[in-house]
């Protein structure tokens, strides 16, 4: 049982407390926060002029707008000066994102997730660790860098290339990353090294998750949060924002569904244009809370489509076919804005105009399981013009339900094409884009893969490369593939086997002593054993790090200045430093710089000044802003008119400085940034004039026919296998926890609520298997197995379970197949078949403390 510390009083920041602007470190929404710090030993008073909030604390705050300062929003940290400081992190009152000081259960814990030796976050890494014999021991940076650079250089010297240097790194904003650290990682691996076996944090390759959209000319971040308040219809396709982007839902979607944004509609829409409260379409195998909350407002304005797993692109094409049949499109728009030659291919392959409508729809219903009437209703809600002259305004937001679906490329392409056919992009209240998971901060030199199979791809599956026994150095930065990668059990076992082979070799004929012995014996062992030298750079000793040879401590959010954009408005803001990192932990950009300089030192010693120079990319980086500006200068010329915004990378911030960001504070600036009259100017909404293609026209694509499931999953659908593995399993996230729980696992507020990974099971299935809420089950298939707690709920249909994807005590990815879309190398994390059994006995303690009430039931 958890012993959670509740508080009934909080320290008050004195009027002279230091105030910083920041943005939440967690989800895509990027709520604004204010940080107050002051030395321990003083406190402010209750009167407004006696505290830094400037708020009268003698009276209770006003609900829905008053100061929000709750138990988890305060902590005490120690800085490098040895002094203790109070840290108060509260929702900002001046943010255009989290209006009225709204915030989520993630953001509420920003303060208690800060590092302190007096709290559970004492687990933060402070010093480099080297696996010595069979234990990690602390070493100084110079020793760590010398060993790492020596091994990396030794591999290059022998191979003549960097093919055996494999990397897996974050490529996002927030969470301690941001533009600064992405630029550092990119310079090291793409400009200094020429690494081609690199994978992004949550998947086996280096790829966009939405090439199906980008290669049409549509970057996935094209709408603004205001569009959710202006839309006639919101479509959530494989996205559950109430749980994963909560404040975007509660402050921007829900008010529109409730009819509370009519004033904004009046001001922003066309004269005489009819409007009303928004309609909501949810396309998801589950009755998500995003749906069931809206049903509480007005069920008649909600529509739920539940396609069979993997069939979403067939459904999107069918909605588009209805739009075509009912002439809900504008031919002039299509001719002016889209490539009409490629449109013919779209009509033939996606809309299948050669197949009679009734026959086409019957086939779609057979494949997807969605009734024709619902498909037609969806088309009406998405595209039927309002009155005679006003096109409907529909905002379509998708996320991992589509991205991590079978046939990633075709899924995304079908969805964006449905929206362009109905002119639902580039206008107020429209757009077709990602919900997002984390924030973004991508700025890097050109990556090794230009695009999908249609554009020089697909990228290499680095997981497979490693599990096949290839590669010598595996360098993991800010991610935990032991939980996050597909076919996880195989991956974990194989990496462990290969890293252990090297560790065992190091002990043969005596352990190494001198630094050069370490390097030479590692290099020798790699050749002799087929083993792997693993380096993990992170803020905690993650599951993956436990098997590493060398662990490098990184700094986290709040411990340095950094910049990121959110996904729902591309809003760039400065996240100000308010505390010091633990011990000798460093920013990722600085670690990359130091590795580069150490490599350069080794090359100079050999008289190879030209190679050394490439590794000295960071020699003039002294501050976070130096790196930010260096990265910004890599974007193309952005002194261009607004009509040309589509030519800019979505995250272009060239011309923006920290001083500018300090000045605009929580208001930020929306990327892509252009320069007008010497001043940075943001972009509210994209593709109003042109699309992001060479000729500016939307590039259509004809999707594949339905071809059934790939062999990795189809094997479970035949004969005895179908009986043995009778359940479909889909996977996803939950409101309470963030990603792999790297912080949350140390917070009792989180661990009490969600002590274990869980599955959701329909009451009929639960009854048939003799399972009730709170029971533990084993879930397994040929790929892997895992132990899960059960929630009984009608969120899922009979025959389908939902499993939490990541929990620090286990991952449903163990059962996920190794299938990836051959066009993009994106996995299908969200569909496979499993068997389930109740585990003997129970854990009464867990049943007594965790809640098993139904999470999507609000009536």
């Amino acid at each position, binding site marked *: *049982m958890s012993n959670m510390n*509740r*508080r009934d*009083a*909080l320290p008050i920041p004195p009027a002279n407390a230091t105030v910083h602007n920041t943005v939440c470190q967690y989800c895509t929404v990027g709520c604004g926060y204010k940080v107050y710090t002051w030395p321990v030993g003083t406190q402010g008073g209750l009167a407004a002029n006696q505290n830094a909030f400037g708020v009268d604390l003698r009276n209770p*705050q006003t609900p829905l707008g008053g100061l929000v300062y709750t*138990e988890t929003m305060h902590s005490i940290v120690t800085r490098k000066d040895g002094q203790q400081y109070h840290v108060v992190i509260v929702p900002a009152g001046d943010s255009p994102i989290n209006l009225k000081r709204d915030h*989520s259960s993630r953001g509420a814990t920003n303060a208690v997730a800060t590092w302190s030796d007096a709290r559970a976050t004492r687990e933060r890494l402070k010093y480099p660790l080297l696996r010595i014999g069979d234990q990690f021991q602390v070493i100084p940076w110079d020793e760590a860098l010398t060993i790492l650079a020596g091994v990396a250089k030794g591999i290059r010297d022998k191979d003549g290339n960097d093919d055996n240097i494999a990397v897996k790194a974050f490529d996002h904003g927030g969470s301690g990353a941001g533009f600064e650290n992405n630029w550092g990682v990119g310079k090291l691996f793409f400009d200094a090294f020429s690494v081609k076996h690199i994978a992004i944090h949550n998947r086996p390759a280096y790829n966009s998750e939405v090439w199906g959209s980008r290669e049409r000319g549509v970057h996935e971040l094209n709408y603004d949060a205001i569009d959710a308040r202006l839309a006639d219809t919101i479509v959530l396709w494989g996205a559950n924002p109430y749980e994963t982007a909560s404040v975007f839902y509660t402050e921007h979607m829900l008010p529109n569904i409730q009819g509370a944004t009519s004033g904004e509609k009046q001001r922003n829409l066309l004269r005489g244009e009819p409007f009303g409260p928004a309609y909501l379409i949810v396309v998801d195998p589950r009755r998500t809370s995003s749906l069931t909350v809206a049903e509480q407002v007005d069920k008649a304005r909600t529509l739920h489509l539940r396609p069979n797993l993997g069939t979403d692109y067939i459904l999107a094409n069918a909605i588009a076919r209805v739009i075509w049949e009912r002439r809900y499109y504008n031919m002039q728009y299509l001719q002016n804005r889209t490539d009409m030659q490629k449109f013919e291919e779209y009509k033939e392959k996606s809309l299948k105009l050669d197949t009679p409508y009734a026959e086409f729809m019957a086939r779609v219903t057979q494949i997807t399981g969605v009734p024709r009437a619902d498909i037609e209703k969806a088309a009406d809600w998405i595209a039927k013009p309002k009155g005679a002259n006003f096109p409907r305004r529909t905002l379509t937001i998708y996320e991992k339900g589509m991205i991590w679906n079978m046939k990633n490329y075709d899924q995304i392409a079908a969805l964006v094409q449905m929206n362009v056919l109905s002119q639902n992009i580039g206008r107020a209240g429209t757009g077709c884009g990602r919900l997002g998971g984390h924030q973004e901060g991508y700025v890097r030199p050109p990556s090794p893969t230009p695009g999908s199979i249609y554009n020089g791809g697909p990228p290499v599956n680095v997981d497979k490369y490693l599990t096949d026994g290839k590669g010598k150095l595996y360098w993991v930065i800010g991610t935990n593939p032991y939980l996050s990668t597909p076919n996880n059990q195989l991956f974990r076992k194989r990496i462990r086997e290969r890293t252990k082979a090297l560790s065992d070799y190091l002990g043969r004929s005596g352990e190494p002593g001198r630094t050069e012995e370490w390097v030479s014996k590692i290099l020798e062992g790699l050749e002799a054993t087929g083993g792997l030298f693993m380096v993990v750079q992170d803020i905690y000793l993650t599951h993956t790090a436990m098997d590493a040879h060398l662990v490098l401590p990184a700094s986290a959010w709040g411990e340095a200045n950094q910049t990121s954009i959110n996904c729902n408005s591309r809003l760039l803001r400065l996240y100000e430093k308010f505390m010091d990192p633990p011990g000798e932990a460093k920013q990722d950009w600085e670690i990359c710089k130091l590795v580069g300089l150490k490599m350069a030192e080794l090359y100079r010693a050999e008289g190879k000044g030209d190679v050394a120079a490439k590794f000295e990319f960071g020699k003039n980086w002294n501050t976070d802003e130096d790196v930010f500006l260096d990265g910004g200068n890599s974007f193309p010329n952005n002194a261009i008119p607004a009509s040309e915004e589509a030519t800019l990378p979505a995250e272009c911030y060239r011309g923006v400085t920290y001083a500018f960001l300090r000045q605009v504070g929580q208001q930020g600036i929306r990327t892509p940034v252009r320069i007008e009259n010497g001043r940075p100017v943001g972009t509210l909404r994209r593709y109003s004039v042109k699309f992001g293609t060479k000729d500016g026209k939307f590039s259509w694509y004809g999707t594949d026919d339905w071809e059934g499931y790939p062999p990795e999953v189809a094997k479970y659908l035949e004969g005895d296998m179908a009986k043995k593995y009778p359940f479909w399993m889909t996977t996803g996230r939950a409101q309470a926890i963030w990603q792999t729980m790297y912080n949350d696992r140390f917070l009792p507020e989180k661990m009490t609520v969600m002590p274990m990974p869980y599955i959701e099971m329909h009451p009929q299935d639960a009854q048939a298997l003799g399972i009730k809420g709170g029971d533990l089950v084993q879930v397994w298939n040929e790929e892997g197995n895992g132990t899960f707690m059960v929630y009984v709920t009608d969120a899922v249909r009979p025959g389908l379970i939902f499993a939490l994807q990541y929990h620090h005590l286990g991952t449903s990815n163990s059962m996920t197949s190794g299938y990836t879309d051959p066009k993009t190398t994106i996995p299908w994390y969200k569909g496979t078949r499993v068997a389930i059994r109740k585990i003997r006995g129970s854990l009464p303690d867990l049943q007594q403390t965790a809640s098993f009430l139904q*999470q999507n039931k609000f009536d």
Partner: protein
Amino acid sequence: MILSRRRTIQVLSGVTMASLTGAGRAQFWFAPSLTYPAVRVGNIRNLQNNQPVTFNYPDARAQGILVKLGRPALGGVGPNRDIVAFSAACTHMGCPVVYKNGRLLCPCHYSMFDPAKAAQVYQGLAGTGLPQIQLRVAPNGDILANAINGLIWGRVRNV
């Protein structure tokens, strides 16, 4: 419901209340740090299952919600350990929660709290459970509010 303040009890700052539930387990919380009044909030003979009663505690500007769940609850009092009370202000943005279908629900942003599990947030945007009001049953069946575990939304200190 009419309030009466019969007496106050002194809860010493910093002393852990090693209070026990029916199962003899340590409770979820450490001690309240402040001194609270003891206030009569009802009588067990007047409570019916799932019929919530509201009251003010620890002062007239804070509302509490008292409910007999009909099933054992963490921190519950009474013969069946099923009587619990919580601050009625949602810990997210302060809206009053309602007791409905066996759970506490905030109508503003739909946070939901499990009254049998110390009002932990099992869904929604709230970062912490509702503050639980410690109860004690007097020999005559009166239910007394003794202290609060957790911070009432909108305050920097409960009293």
